[in-house]
């Protein structure tokens, strides 16, 4: 059942099992091309696992994944990257001990046309390719705001700069779909706004679709076209941000059942010793 043409990524009954633990349970996801699509959910919901499944870092237990109309489950991660998917990581995974430029250059691996035997003899073709790579990397460097600082070691950059550099590296692979795993983690409100603007800029400049895992509601509600909510590996809601905000199931997943929440509040304020803990439904 191939997905609709404007859907860039689709999963059908995606399931991921770790031994006895069902991390992702029959997830159906449809990401529209050009959109900013967010995945949210409480901790343990399976969000990063979904990313790992898409990138084929994990072999999925069941289900299908389509990217631009082709099945990608069963491929290796480098082939998925070659197909046009790229990602950043929750805890920044830059190549710490090399420079920012070198990080970007690695990102360009897929699209450089030089071969190792050309490199051995330093053929003109290789030299041209390296020069082009350098120019591209400089442009990317400027885009992520590190102009003139390309020779700094990745680990010596500030936190926000590292995040942007990691995104730059992901963009260097010229993806059609960019998976961002909590890009604003650990940022204060101003930095978060800057990151949000940066993500929008990237989407426009590079013509990519963005799939985003986020915890900060401000980001999710402010930027997303579509929000998917996961809880315990199951999709419990999906839709535009304002619908999600008022969805009862979503509220229950984050806070426990509304009734139980109210009851707990009453008990606490009446000063009585609570006989039982509220029942978190689901």
């Amino acid at each position, binding site marked *: 059942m191939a997905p609709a043409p404007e859907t860039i990524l689709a999963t059908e009954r995606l399931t991921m099992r770790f031994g006895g633990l069902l991390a992702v349970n029959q997830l159906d996801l449809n990401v529209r091309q050009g959109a900013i699509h967010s995945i949210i959910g409480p901790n343990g919901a399976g969000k990063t696992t979904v990313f790992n499944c898409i990138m084929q*870092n994990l*072999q999925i237990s069941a289900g299908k994944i389509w990217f631009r109309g082709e099945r990608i489950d069963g491929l*290796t991660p480098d082939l998925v990257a070659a197909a046009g998917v790229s990602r950043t990581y929750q805890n920044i995974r830059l190549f710490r001990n090399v420079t920012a430029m070198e990080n970007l250059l690695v990102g360009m691996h897929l699209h450089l046309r030089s071969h190792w035997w050309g490199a051995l003899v330093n053929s003109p073709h290789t030299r041209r390719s390296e020069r082009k790579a350098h120019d591209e990397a400089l442009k990317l460097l400027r885009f992520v705001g590190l102009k003139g600082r390309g020779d700094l070691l990745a680990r010596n950059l500030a936190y926000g700069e590292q995040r942007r550099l990691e995104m730059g590296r992901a963009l260097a692979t010229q993806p059609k779909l960019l998976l961002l795993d909590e890009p604003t983690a650990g940022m204060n409100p101003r930095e978060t706004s800057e990151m949000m603007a940066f993500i929008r800029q990237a989407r426009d400049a590079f013509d990519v679709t963005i799939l985003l895992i986020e915890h900060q509601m401000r980001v999710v509600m402010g930027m997303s076209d579509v929000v998917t909510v996961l809880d315990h590996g199951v999709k419990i809601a999906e839709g535009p941000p304002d619908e999600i905000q008022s969805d009862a199931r979503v509220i229950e997943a984050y806070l426990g059942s509304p009734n139980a929440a109210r009851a707990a509040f009453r008990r606490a304020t009446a000063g009585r010793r609570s006989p039982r803990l509220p029942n978190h439904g689901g």
Partner: protein
Amino acid sequence: MTDVARGRTLIPKLRSLSRFTFVDVVLWALRISVLMVVVGGSVGTLIKGRYGAVQWLEFLTFGVTMGSLYALVALGYTMVYGVLRLINFAHGDIMMTGAFSGYFVASALAGRGFLDRDPVLAMLAIMAVAVTTSTTIAVLTERLAYRPFRHVRGLAPLICAIGVSFFLEQTFRGAFGAGVRAYPDPKWQKGAISVLGYAVPILQIMVVAAALVSMAILYLIVQRTKMGTAMRAVSEDADAAALMGIDVDRVIVFTFALGGAMAGIAGVCYAFIFKQVYFYMGFTPGIKAFGAAVLGGIGSVPGAMLGGLFLGIVESVGPALFLDGIGIPAPYQLRDLIAFILLIMVLIFRPYGILGERMAKKRA
């Protein structure tokens, strides 16, 4: 062709490559060829009928004996890996130190006839000296060579372990000479006891008994004592253990000591079986024991015991069963080969071992 356009044409090609890569082919070829040797060889040997039941039993008992020794040494590897995530390359040499120090006591006692007169006491004395030496050296290596690298990732601890291995070997070579020393051969070890109608050498029974007793004691320590529980805690999660008030340094020292003791006992037994000691004797058994530990599931104590036993039996029965059957001359030269191939197969196909847990499959 521009890069972007090339990206678009990549996708159709991807499907054909995905299902069955070249690497998979080779790996399957490997599995199949090993299987063919095993099955074909066994069939060939059984058809040829060159070995009678008595001989198979001899192979088996020898295999069990060697297996229990491998198990003892493997325990050291597995315990150290559990608490430190370090492969202690020098562990085989620690076994050698036990064997060597036991040698001096043994030859002294044999010289005075004590070994024949009072075998139990003599053996205990030899074991005591051997265990003391090997334990001391194990603890020293931890303190001097491994502790500074406790927090370091990457190659450094491994390189250090290789350095320690060299150091121990050369120290013993320099101090005691490069020659092979003959272990005493007391009369009482030469006999055999009849078990179910077959003659089993007393020496083998003694070795297996010693190994079993040692392993039982180790098991009790690990399962029942406070220190053993601490060891298991540190294996599981050292940070959490430290937060619970466990003195991780002391646990690690204890682990090394325990592993060293096991290796010392194994060393003496090994020396009595092969009747010789020399400075390099720990190397190959060390690698094999490591293979056994991985085979059983590294970090798992019962795994090491199981793995050792399995390796010993396969290694003993293997040359005759597999290799002779496919017509290889002098298959006993290739006995080490069996151990190495087993080790490699385990590392490639099932690195978590028999008793290790199967994690979700990662892509190659």
